[in-house]
């Protein structure tokens, strides 16, 4: 299943500056593995301890995957996967 993946500025060093790349997979995890095989190092920025890294948000189309199964969330042919840096912080 081919999906297009939007890459945020901070990760474009892994994609040769490209804003959008193609990848295959039936789940978010599979797409990330495929991405990593094409753009080495991306997986380490997205996945930690078997889950989605807390520093990133990943969306399938308009849905934050944290609400629909995380790395197991399914993707379909033609879907858009968007990666954004999570914006957070605070006094603690």
């Amino acid at each position, binding site marked *: 299943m081919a999906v297009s993946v939007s890459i945020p500025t901070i990760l474009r060093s892994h994609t040769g500056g490209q804003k959008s790349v193609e990848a295959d997979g039936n789940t978010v995890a599979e797409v990330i593995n495929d991405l990593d095989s094409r753009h080495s190092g991306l997986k380490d920025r997205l996945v930690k301890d078997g889950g989605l890294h807390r*520093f990133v948000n990943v969306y399938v189309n*308009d849905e*934050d995957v*944290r609400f629909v199964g995380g790395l197991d969330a399914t993707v379909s042919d033609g879907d858009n996967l968007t990666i954004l*840096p999570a914006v*957070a*912080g605070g*006094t*603690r």
Partner: protein
Amino acid sequence: MLVIRRDLVDAMVAHARRDHPDEACGVVAGPEGSDRPERVIEMTNAERSPTFYRFDSTEQLRVWRAMDAADEEPVVIYHSHTATEAYPSRTDVSYASEPNAHYVLLSTRDPHEYELRSYRIVDGVVTEEPVEVVESYMFAHTGSDDVPDRG
């Protein structure tokens, strides 16, 4: 250095005061590559907490897409500290992921005087920068000012 219009500073301060004692957060969008903040976008603090903030992820996607469609980027990413000084915490630094953004910290711990400071945060290194508040960008070298000045 951060050069920013006074009305944008006023809008950020008003937002931070309104959400006090919870932390307020948002962005100031501007044309990509211009380094010119033009439009304050208040974001929902999904944590609604006095010690932590996180952009609501669904709102963030919508706002980021709109900026993308308008060839804009987050020139400023701001949030408030409501009981401490306007200096990035370790958590702020660990999340900072926009190397081109000015990270603006606003402290509202004093009910009468606010403190506003700006930082670059790249690869975990915090560098404070001067802030110049201007009435308009008309005399800056960054292009025309198409937003009318107030008053």
